[in-house]
Each structure stands twice: as structure tokens, then as C-alpha cells.
């Protein structure tokens, strides 16, 4: 960090003429915010010593303003002396309807002022303060700025460019206040962090309290109900150790009951399985996940998303596979439909929650490769499934045609009853369905003829 800050500041402030705040600097070169403040000062004084007025600064003053009249001088910060509940015991006098005949005790309130000021007004503003508890450079610019509001672009930049760090770990490098109690749920499709995994995490465990959080927390606490796209779009990530993911992959494999079969067949269409295994292996050798956000939707066929180009799988392969195995698909679809019907009754209760997530799913819909697996967490099944959707559009001749197309749809529903129950309901439904569709036609006609 020795001189990188000088290069960064010179490039940004002097060459590009863009403002930089201590906060942005600290994130750009990964130093504590308090050091960043000092770096700004160092740079500011050096540059202006070389060439006056070459760099302009804004200052931030914290302290107590002069207009504040405190009863007890300077030790008012603790506030102890301001506690005055001296209003006499409550008296109810008959003629007065208002409760406080005497003046109620207004509390004298200490006030801390935080003022952002340009260097031109620094001295003047400082004079307004009775006591300055801290002062530092807030930002540097290439020249005097008229409107301080432009400094907010720096925080925008932090939001866009430095967002992919784990927010719960930033305190270590950047020096914001650490709160050991805060937990953050992980992405929707990522399995819960097993305790072993958190030990294997690339970053050292910060504090015992932190590492124990995931353990003590029950599984559902880590489940993120939100859509995976949040993480994908925002680029934010949680350190998601691959090892852990593959562990839980096995776990969830064993856990998830029959319904999984449907999606497994789809997976075989994708021919992604061997690759997935390769990917797993290669990842296991490199414990540090290169791009965390890529890992969010991991489960059985994790990895294949990274290896096979998603689009190809999505459109061409899936389509080809579909055409090639039309018959099988047909039977499959029936099964799917049966599944769907079967699922409906327990859906409505929770549908509310999930439907609100749906609009946010944009990003994940473009990555269907991660889709055909189901995660069971906290009594809810989540995942994506293929459904046939009717798409209406104009063809070349200008006619409106309705086509049936396979589309992916995310779903989340109450976990089905234990394994054994599953096969039973599925089949009866599908057969019942077949009967129904068969019977009305045949039976009706037969009976019609019989009657006649």
C-alpha cells in the first residue's frame, strides 16, 4: 500500500479530474478508512506544496457547535447530567383537565454536529464550533466544486464497482464497525453452509462468534428466500466454498424424494453430468472459488454452468434433445403435468411470497442450465422446472400462431410428504387423468349407443 495510493490519487484526481472520497480510496486500495483519510491529507499537502491550488479538498468536522448551550460545560457528552425527571409527583387537581399544571421538564439535549465543508469555508465553519472532536479530509477534487452533491458519485461508484466483496467481512480491511451478531442469508439456490465448510472457507474465520453463527443457526436461517438473481445481478457474493457445496449436494441428493427424477431426466438430456463431475474435481483442488457469484445456484449439476456455454445448452441442445426424443418427452410431460396438478393444492398458501420474487428473477431465467435441480430447505422445495407455455406470435405470413414451447419456471412449494407417499399419488393421478380423458369420449359414445 506504500505508494499505490499516490498513483491512484494522481491518476484519478489530477489526470481524470474526478473527485475521490476517503471511502472510495479505502475500497480501491483496500486500506482502513482512517488510513485513507490520512492518505488524502498527505497527498493534498504534498501536491499543494509542489503546486499550490492543484488539489482541492473538502473537510468533515465533527464536534459541538457554539450555539449549543449546555448546562454543564464540556462533560455533557456522557449525558448523565441531562437526565432531569424532576417534575413533581403526579397531582390530579379537579379543576384542571390538563395533567401538567407546572411546566413539564424539557430535556436539555446535547447535540453533535457533523459538517461537510469546502476548504474555502473551513476556518469560518470551524470557528462556529465550540469543540471539534474530529476533523479529516472527506474528499479531494481537482478544483473547487460549486455543489458538494457531486461527491455522491463516489458512493455510487462503490456501489457499482466494489460491491462484490462480502459485506460482513469488510470491517476487517476497511475498518467499519464490526457487528458479530449480524447474519446474512445466502443465495436462494445455494445450499446451506455446513459447519465443516465454513472451516474450509478460504478466508480465515474472523472470530469464534462468527464461525459459530452458521452452526447455531438452523438450516432455514441460512436459506435465502430471495431469488438467485439478486446475487447475480448485484454481483454481491458470499464466500461459498465449493467443497461445502459438493458435500451438501450429496446430502440434498439423498434427501430429495422422487420428484427429483423428473429433473434428472432433463439433466440427462443436457449431457452435463460427466462435465459436472470434472468441474467438481477441479474445483476441489482449488478451494478458493474464483468467482463466488457463479456458485450461487449450485447443486447436483453445478459446474456444468461454467463449462458448457449456457446459451447453447438452453436453446440448441435442449431443443435438439427434445425433438430427438419426442415420444419420451411426451410421456415425461404427462408425468410433469401430473406432478403439477398434484402440487397445486399446497401451493396457494405460500404462493404469495414467491410470486413477489418472480419479477426479480430476470437474470436467472437466462441461465436455465442451473435450473433443473430442486433444493429442499426449511421444509420448502425450490428449484426450476420445465413447463410448456403457449406462446402467441406472428409468423412470416403475418398470421397469428400459437406455439407450445418449453420454458423454465421457478417454483417453490411446501415439501412433499415423505418419500413413500410420493409415488403413490403421482401414478394414480396420471392414470386417473388418462381414464378421465379416455372415459368421457369412449364411455359416452358407448353409452350413447347402448341407450339408443
Amino acid at each position, binding site marked *: 500500500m506504500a505508494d499505490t495510493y499516490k498513483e491512484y490519487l494522481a491518476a484519478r484526481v489530477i489526470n481524470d479530474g474526478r473527485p475521490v472520497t476517503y471511502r472510495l480510496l479505502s475500497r480501491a486500495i483496500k486500506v482502513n478508512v482512517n*488510513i485513507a483519510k490520512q492518505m488524502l491529507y*498527505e497527498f493534498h499537502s504534498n501536491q499543494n506544496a509542489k503546486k499550490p491550488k492543484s488539489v482541492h479538498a473538502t473537510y468533515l468536522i465533527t464536534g459541538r457547535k457554539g450555539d449549543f448551550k449546555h448546562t454543564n460545560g464540556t462533560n455533557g457528552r456522557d*449525558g448523565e447530567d441531562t437526565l432531569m*425527571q424532576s417534575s413533581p409527583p403526579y397531582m390530579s387537581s*379537579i*379543576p384542571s*383537565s390538563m395533567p401538567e399544571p407546572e411546566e413539564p421538564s424539557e430535556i436539555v439535549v446535547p447535540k453533535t454536529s*457533523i459538517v461537510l465543508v469546502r476548504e474555502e469555508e473551513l476556518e469560518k465553519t470551524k470557528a462556529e464550533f465550540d469543540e471539534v472532536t474530529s476533523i479529516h479530509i472527506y474528499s479531494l477534487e481537482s478544483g473547487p466544486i460549486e455543489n458538494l452533491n457531486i461527491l455522491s458519485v463516489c458512493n455510487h461508484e462503490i456501489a457499482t464497482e466494489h460491491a462484490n466483496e462480502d459485506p460482513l467481512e469488510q470491517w476487517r480491511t476497511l475498518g467499519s464497525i464490526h457487528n458479530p451478531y449480524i447474519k446474512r442469508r445466502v443465495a436462494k439456490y445455494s445450499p446451506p453452509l455446513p459447519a465443516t465448510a465454513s472451516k474450509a472457507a478460504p478466508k480465515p474465520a474472523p472470530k469464534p462468534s462468527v464461525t459459530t453463527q452458521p452452526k447455531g443457526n438452523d438450516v432455514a436461517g441460512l436459506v435465502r428466500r430471495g431469488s438467485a438473481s439478486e446475487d447475480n445481478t448485484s454481483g454481491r457474493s458470499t464466500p461459498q466454498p465449493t467443497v461445502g457445496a459438493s458435500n451438501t449436494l450429496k446430502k440434498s441428493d439423498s434427501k430429495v424424494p422422487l420428484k427429483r427424477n423428473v429433473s434428472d431426466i432433463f439433466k440427462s438430456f443436457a449431457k452435463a453430468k460427466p462435465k459436472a463431475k470434472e468441474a467438481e474435481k477441479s474445483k476441489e483442488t482449488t478451494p478458493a472459488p474464483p468467482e463466488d457469484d457463479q456458485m450461487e445456484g449450485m447443486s447436483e449439476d453445478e459446474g456444468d454452468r461454467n463449462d458448457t456455454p449456457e446459451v447453447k445448452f438452453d436453446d440448441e441442445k435442449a431443443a435438439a434433445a427434445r425433438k430427438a426424443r419426442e415420444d419420451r418427452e411426451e410421456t415425461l410431460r404427462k408425468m410433469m403435468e401430473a406432478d403439477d396438478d398434484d402440487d397445486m393444492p399446497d401451493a396457494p398458501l405460500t404462493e404469495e411470497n414467491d410470486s413477489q420474487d418472480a419479477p426479480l428473477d430476470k437474470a436467472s431465467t437466462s441461465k436455465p442450465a442451473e435450473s433443473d435441480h430442486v433444493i429442499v430447505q426449511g421444509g420448502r422445495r425450490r428449484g426450476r422446472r420445465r413447463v410448456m407455455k403457449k406462446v402467441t406470435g406472428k409468423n412470416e405470413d403475418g398470421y397469428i400462431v400459437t406455439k407450445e414451447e418449453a420454458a423454465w419456471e421457478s417454483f417453490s412449494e411446501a415439501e412433499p410428504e415423505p418419500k413413500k407417499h410420493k409415488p403413490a399419488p403421482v401414478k394414480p393421478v396420471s392414470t386417473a387423468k388418462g381414464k378421465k380423458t379416455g372415459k368421457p369420449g369412449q364411455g359416452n359414445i358407448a353409452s350413447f349407443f347402448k341407450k339408443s
Partner: protein
Amino acid sequence: MVSLTGNMLRGAPFEDPAYLPSRAPSAYNPLHTFDLSRGTEKLYSQQYADMYFLRLSQLRKAVIERAKDAWGDFALGEERARMVDRVLDVRQGELCWVVGTVYMEMGLKPNILDDISKEHWIAAPPPRETYASGQDEMMLEDESGRLRVTGDALNAHYVTGCVLAALGTEQADGTFQVIATQYADLPRQPQRWERDDSELVVAKKPKPKRERAGKIAIVSGLEITGKVDDELALDLLLEYLTGELGGAPDQSKTTKISRLVIAGDSLSHSSPILSREDFAIKKSGKKGYGYDASAYNSSPTERLDFLLSQILPTLPITLLPGASDPANVALPQQPLHPALFPQSRQYANPPVKSNESLEGLDSVTNPWEGDIEGWRVLGTGGQTVADLLKYVDEVETLEVMEMMLRWRCIAPTAPDTLWCYPFQDEDPLVVQDCPHIYFAGNQAKFGSRIIQGPADQQVLLIAVPKFSLTKTIVLVDLETMTVELVDIGIAQAAA
């Protein structure tokens, strides 16, 4: 002048930053007093009359007790005051007292018939600052009927919906001349940690050793518009709360803040029911059906989400909706939906799992009640106070808040002039437990006061100013119950 450690105006060699203690823990135990039942159990077909009946029946006993204490042996000349059960049983010339609900007949109070006729006016009158018109009448009603009341003792300090006992005589013209009034006054106040301790006893766990409590920070009225103008103040607020701003002495003070409470109006112009002005603007725009992506501006919500998600890694937040937030408009407003916060909701428990998040983002109702550091805290987004202020002249926010607690009803003017859910079986707006801290958000200016009740209850009242106007954060020390202010200023260039 500048304390040594706080002066960061020094360059190389860079010292290692001072050790910053971790954030103080927040003992937090929310109540769900104001949660409405969901789905089909939430009915709007009931009559509001039930609410007044409920309120009267819930408060009658307490009011009668208070009145008996005060007027039990009150006599005027030879005549002793006598309690009358129903307002219509009052007899002319007889000294008596009666309990009823106040109803104010006010000239400028909104009237549905006026609203309808307004549709035919060329220009609608401006929105009302006050309902008082000069020839207002006060009445006392119960299930039997109404009694017109007059008297100096009233002093125009009562509003529709509060329950009180009035002592007086009926005049020749049928009005009830009031000499004095009594109200329920503060209810029982729980001990500190009472609820937490009783939960522990039920769970058969030993009482934990409790550390010295930290502070809570309360802001309200962020009124994020998504425009550039308010960005910088929000940035400074964020940096202050995360402890990045300032020097070591100020930063370590910030670590004492253990929770942020946002008391309503985080977004501006986001209420599902548009104000008259917003409606006019929208009406003049192009007409169309369905969702219009060009008309919807998502930047305020995104900005709020970003702000919260930046604060949350270091500070838990309790978020109340307010009048201008995208929640339901009728009190009690239900929690802001997590779908509004795609990023920050990762710090909240999923709604399917739990309806509260002890650490992280807790999106709660308005009004809201809960235990923070063992103290009972009651807070609102401020609509109740604002509406009550329209009934009365020359009364301050803090007085209004005090009276609400003493009347034991935090929204007396609902359902008369304030939208409200038609409660059927119980009215949660009636205060059951006296809070230790009662705050109202979105007030014009800051104020705080300690009031005391007949049984040594002490309540800290806080009027939280709008952040968008005053740039002020209110800090409450939960050990000493002292209040501090933090004021964020941006010195613009002298013109």
C-alpha cells in the same frame, strides 16, 4: 481545540488505526400487537362503530376508577356528585358525572358529502391544516346516545375518540355544563426486562448476565426521491452509522449504537393512494392500461435498499412504514414488503420462517411496539400525531403524544379522520402496557420530554424530526434514558 486523536489532518507515516470495539449487542424482542391477520381473515366489511364500542368498554373501567378517586366525595353546596351510567340518563339540574367517548363536530372536518360535491367544483379547496372552525361542538357519546357538552374545562383539548369522564350538570337548554374531566391516565408499566425474563422463566433458562445497554438511533422521514439532491446527506448518514466517518473518538462513540429505528416515510411519494396533487399530475399524463414501465420510477426504492444493505452489515434496523411509504394506508400499517428490498432482505429472516428478525432487518408495523434492551418501546410513523394536531390549536407535538398515552389510545382520531382497519374483537390502538419510550416520527422539529404517571410510570416522549428537512438523527441511551442529537450539515459554498 481539536482533540489529538480526532485530528486526522496528518500525513505519513500512517499509523495503524485505533482499535474499534465491536458493535454493542442489541437485546430486541418485538411484539406483534399491530399485525393484522392475513388473507381472508382480514375483513373490511365490519362497521367502525364496533371500534368505538370496544374502546369505551376497554377504557370505561379505568376511567371510572380515576373519576371515583377524584370525585368520590366531591360536593357542590349540599349536593354530592353521583355517577350516571349512560349519557342519556343525565337529568337536568343534577350534579353528576358520566363516562363517554368524545365526538367533535367541527366545521372543517372532512366530510364525504363535501368530497363528492368537490368533484363538481372547478377548483378544489386546498388541503386542510386544521379542522377547527370556531363554531365547533363537542359531544360525549356512548352506546345510548350523545350529549352535547360545554364548559371552560374543555379548553378545546379533546379530540374525537378519546374516552373520558365528565363532571357537571345539564343546563336548561339540554347541554351538559362540564366542571371537570378525568381520563384513564397511564396504564401499568412493565418492569424492565419483564417480558424477556418471564419468557426465560417459562423456558426454564437462567437469566443471562446483561451488559450495559447501548443506544438506539432513530431517524424518520428520509423521504428518498432517488434524485441527486438528497444523496450526500444520506451518504453521510450511512457513513456515520457504519462508523467510517470522523476520527477515532467519534467512531468509538458510534459503536455504542446498537440499533437503528427508521420511523416511517423512508420514501417520498410512494403511498399507494396518491395525494390530491400527485393524482392531478398523474391524471394529466397519458392514459393507458396496466403497468407502465416508463411511468414507474424504481430509483427511490433501489436507493433505500442500497442504503439499508450498506448499514445492515454493521447495524440491525427496525423499519416502520409511514404515510408516504408503499404499505397499506390504513392504520395499523403492515410491514413493508421484503420484495422492495432485494439486497437488504438477505439480512432478514424469510417471511415463511419467521415474522421477526432479531438481528438484521426487521420490517415491522406502524404503530409498532416491542422491547429493546428490556424497555418497552412504542413508536409510530407520526400520522396519528399529525392528524390529532389538526383538531387542536396551539398544542405542541409532545403534548399531543402525552395526551395520547394518558387517554390510553395512540390513535384516537382513527377511524374518524384517520384511515384505520375496522377492528372487531379488540382494538390494539388502545394502550395496554405503558411504554418506557414513545416516539413519533416525521415531526416538524425535535422534542423530548419525560412524563410521569400516577403509579410512578416514567415515559420518555420523543418527537423525531424529518431527516429530509432537519438532517437530524436522534440517539437514545438505553441505560440512562438520555437523548442526544446528531446533526448532519453540508456547508454549501457561500454564494
